[in-house]
């Protein structure tokens, strides 16, 4: 599409800021992790959209194809996705453990309990 060639970066920025906003403005820890995930996806989109070459195709070598998209960002993001879910699981495990200890997953309530002690 001809229309602004920087559109992909703007969407990335919007997604990134949405995730950032969720992380800083919400108190619920699960919601914060969701926010981090959106932030993370924005970085994925950033890499993958940069790797796209106009007229290129998927980087799987075949006869009669001259132009491929850039395979390197694909490799980085592929592993990052799986690492991302593993670290998300780690974060969720911490949330579960925090609920065991405090009985809540709201940041402000946890802080209030801490201050009471």
């Amino acid at each position: 599409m001809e229309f602004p060639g920087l559109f992909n970066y703007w969407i990335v920025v919007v997604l990134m800021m949405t995730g950032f906003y969720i992380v800083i403005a919400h108190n619920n820890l699960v919601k914060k992790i969701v926010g981090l995930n959106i932030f993370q996806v924005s970085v994925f989109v950033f890499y993958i959209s940069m790797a796209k070459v106009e007229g290129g195709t998927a980087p799987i070598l075949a006869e009669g194809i001259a132009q491929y998209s850039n395979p390197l960002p694909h490799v980085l993001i592929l592993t990052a996705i799986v690492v991302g879910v593993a670290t998300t699981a780690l974060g969720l495990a911490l949330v579960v453990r925090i609920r065991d200890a405090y009985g809540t997953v709201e940041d402000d309530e946890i802080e209030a309990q801490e201050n009471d002690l």
Partner: protein
Amino acid sequence: MSLMAFMGVIGFAVARLRNLFGVVMLTGIFSLTGAVLYVVLDAVDVAFTEAAVGAGIATVLMLGTLALTTSEEKPASDNKPLLSLLLVTVTGAVLIYGTLDMPYYGEATAPINNHVAPRYLEESGREIGLPNVVTSVLASYRGYDTLGETFVIFTAACGVLLIIGRPQRGRRRARRDANWDIEHGIRKNVILRVVSKLLLPLILLFALYVQWHGDFGPGGGFQAGVIFASAFILYAIIFDVDLARAVIGPKVTRFFLALGVTLYAGTGTACLLFGSNFLDYSILLDEQTRGQHLGITLVEFGVGMTVAAAMVTIFFTFASQER
């Protein structure tokens, strides 16, 4: 392009919605949209991974957490949304200003496409001998990165086990009567049970196909591991976690968790012992491309094992928590 805009809209919906169950469902849709977007952008391997991980496992894990905590977000008391909004807007504006110097979408002359990428595309067919350049770069050229990332997954699974894996007094749920579950709730649904039983072998078979065919088409250890694990997760959801644990116990998953990374690092060390560099597979067999192929197959298998074991371990650890 419109897909990207759609992702932005879902992002806003996630930020606004207070019901966490809805939020988790929306993130599932968000991931699936992302996967479609990656296909459009030629990143088939990435799309594969995102579809299996983001729309599958991540959603299940989030739901598991909601079941253990709460599914409704409380309205914040001490919140300063305006301050946060201002901060976000300013940061976003600065970032947008930064993008004005970026190369346009799809430009072949962009710096990112002219560093090492042309070399991978032109030489990997001769040096590695595999059609899928992503696999060549992943397992051979950048084998170190992938080794590190496999260890991160290993470490994360260990971390989950350390944090909530230990049975605490009264926290490990009692072994319930499996028959009770079959007569009540989701497990009562005959269609679900029959269809999932039919699907299970196909999922496992497909995972193996993705594992071994990853050198030629989209796929590889990361995707295969996740798909393999999803079969066990499906079984545990539809039938019972304890039944699933009887099929593949904690000892087995922990063994494979460690065996996968050992296989990866061991392949690298074998290259050292043969007198070459760490993870330089060319030395393994008499011919360069055959050696590379063997090495890549071995490390991808290691990755697959660790990823599958990690996902199964993480899921079972979450599922066997008592609320």
